[in-house]
């Protein structure tokens, strides 16, 4: 926040910084931001819930993002998503009870040439098949520390 000069227009930048540090936005963090940027609480909460990129739920240890952009949709990403959903018993936005895996959908990851695409912990996988995706999830779920 200091970096952005404590100005109110820095709200979104500040939320980005918090989310990239802590993985999600909790109420305490939002209150802190509102206090420091001198913004109304409801405005901060309103902004945090307006944008898809921000999440107020902690994410799992591993995150799988399935792209549902047009090119991916046409090329079968709904099948990939369905396979993952069936395998992991997750719907998009959810995390497994053991906090290991979160499933997220994206509007478009901008790599349509490789459609359908998904990312596994940020690593992009192109031309993905349903079996390949569930295999990766299985690997995550079975991994013991």
């Amino acid at each position, binding site marked *: 926040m200091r970096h952005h000069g404590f100005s109110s227009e820095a709200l979104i*930048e500040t939320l980005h910084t918090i989310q990239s540090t802590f993985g999600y936005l909790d109420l305490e963090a939002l209150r802190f931001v509102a206090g420091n940027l001198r913004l109304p609480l409801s405005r901060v909460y309103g902004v945090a819930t307006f944008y898809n*990129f921000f999440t107020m739920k902690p994410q799992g240890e591993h995150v799988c993002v399935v792209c549902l952009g*047009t090119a991916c*949709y*046409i090329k079968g990403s709904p099948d990939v998503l369905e396979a993952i959903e069936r395998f992991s018993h997750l719907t998009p936005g959810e995390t497994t009870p053991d906090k290991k895996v979160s499933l997220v959908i994206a*509007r478009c990851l*901008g790599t349509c040439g490789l*459609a359908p695409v998904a990312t596994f912990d940020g690593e992009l996988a192109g031309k993905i098949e349903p079996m390949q995706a569930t295999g990766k999830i299985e690997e995550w779920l079975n991994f013991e520390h």
Partner: protein
Amino acid sequence: MNTEELHQIAIDEQTRQRQYKHRLFVCMGTGCLAAHSDQVKQSLEAEVERRELKGQCQIASGGCQGLCVAGPMVTVEPQGTLYQHVQPQDAAEVIETLDQSPIERLQDRTTESFFQRQTKVVLNLAGRVDPERIEDYIAADGYSALLKALTEMTPAEVIEQITASGLRGRGGAGYPAGLKWSTVGKARSEHKYVICNGDEGDPGAFMDRSVMEDYPHRIIEGMAIAAYAVGADNGYIYVRAEYPLAVKRLGLAIRQAQKHGLLGNNIGGTSFNFHLEIRMGAGAFVCGEETALIASIEGGRGVPRPRPPYPAASGVFGQPTLINNVETFANVAQIIARGSDWFTGIGTEKSKGTKIFALTGKINNSGLIEVPMGITLREIIYDIGGGIPNDRSFKAVQTGGPSGGCMPTEYLDIVVDYESLQKAGSHMGSGGMIVMDETSCMVDVAKYFMEFCMTESCGKCVPCRVGTAQMYDLLNKITHGEATLDDLAMLEKLCGMVRATSLCGLGQGAPIPVLSTLRYFRDEYLAHIVDKHCPAGVCNITAAERTTA
């Protein structure tokens, strides 16, 4: 930095480049990186090291070649050989054969037409400039247009050139850039802003990502020229948070330009000041709408407001603001450097220059292409795109994203420009071009886009907030075989109403996919409603529903 100093950097860099007998560029775009092009680069570097060829052979990072499915791609200069699907273990062979004929195995003749039929203006340095080095860009004449504008032209002359070039906004609507610039130029205010709209939200489009990743300096230069022309001293590049590589490279480019005195105070030794910052979006399609983008830059919910007043009069923080799209700014420097006559030599009467498209869907060569305005859809799909895979037949091509239309076979021979696409019930949009074959259900496609608009609606105005939900429910009923002809009539009525009454482009455009598919594929809607049957076999209409209906 003045013109002589810039020239010196260019010469130094060119000399440095000439030292090398061979220069290999490994694509570091998002697509090739996903295929581990970074590992290919490392092994090429190791191979050069091992053979002690460091002084003769340079391994550099390059930009996107467009054909992401063929990645990782490596360009070998000066021969201009293009290798596809290069693996780390190919490194030895690639280096070994540098002075011999190219490796057949790594070349794919079937994609030749993909590269040959394009006209590259914005993407003309593709693959041969390291996006992370300002010297590379300067050696390719970068920033000479900015200094030319600052030292040889008045702001009015710059605007004149842009107006004469006929450049139109590449974000979708095709508003003449010169007119926009002169409106902002005429606004009286102490502070003005220039904004680059890099919130490429259309699903199935990635032109701007690629331009931002590969040509960050070209965008900065275009924005600085625009700022000089309209009298702005501050600017923002608004980038989607989903594009981390673009954010990183633009940030790096801004710092490099500042260091070289090409951004900041007294640019080029003149009295012109221009300060540029990046603002990250946070996943809201509506922020591509300029008033919503402004609200987002100001740190608020990305909600549009009625226009007028237009941003040209009252934009960011209430100041006159010029907003153009990434590709628009990326054209500016070359227009100033090469003159408007050169630019008007490309394209059609009313649409000048080139357009970048993200060609995807059911097509052999899916990728990023740049074509002159006036090319036909058929040339794009069959010559550049290599046709439809698996011997299936073409059904429709969709342009314009969630507010665009689907054009059937009989439109394959129309030329691509703003007017003719509009006449065909679609529009240019920002450049997504999605090809569909007989296995795509047009009602399902319409439903897909409506679902998109419904969840991306900001919720401010009633027609868009409620109308998109109502239309989605009706489309859902149709694809489930539960709809009646009355439902179809209501859908059409809602389309007209939402189109006419919504506050911003998102709502006004939301009905277009439905309207265009109804125009060309009405029989598919009727098949779902009357026969309870999905001709493409996509929609899951169960037998039980068929008997009860």
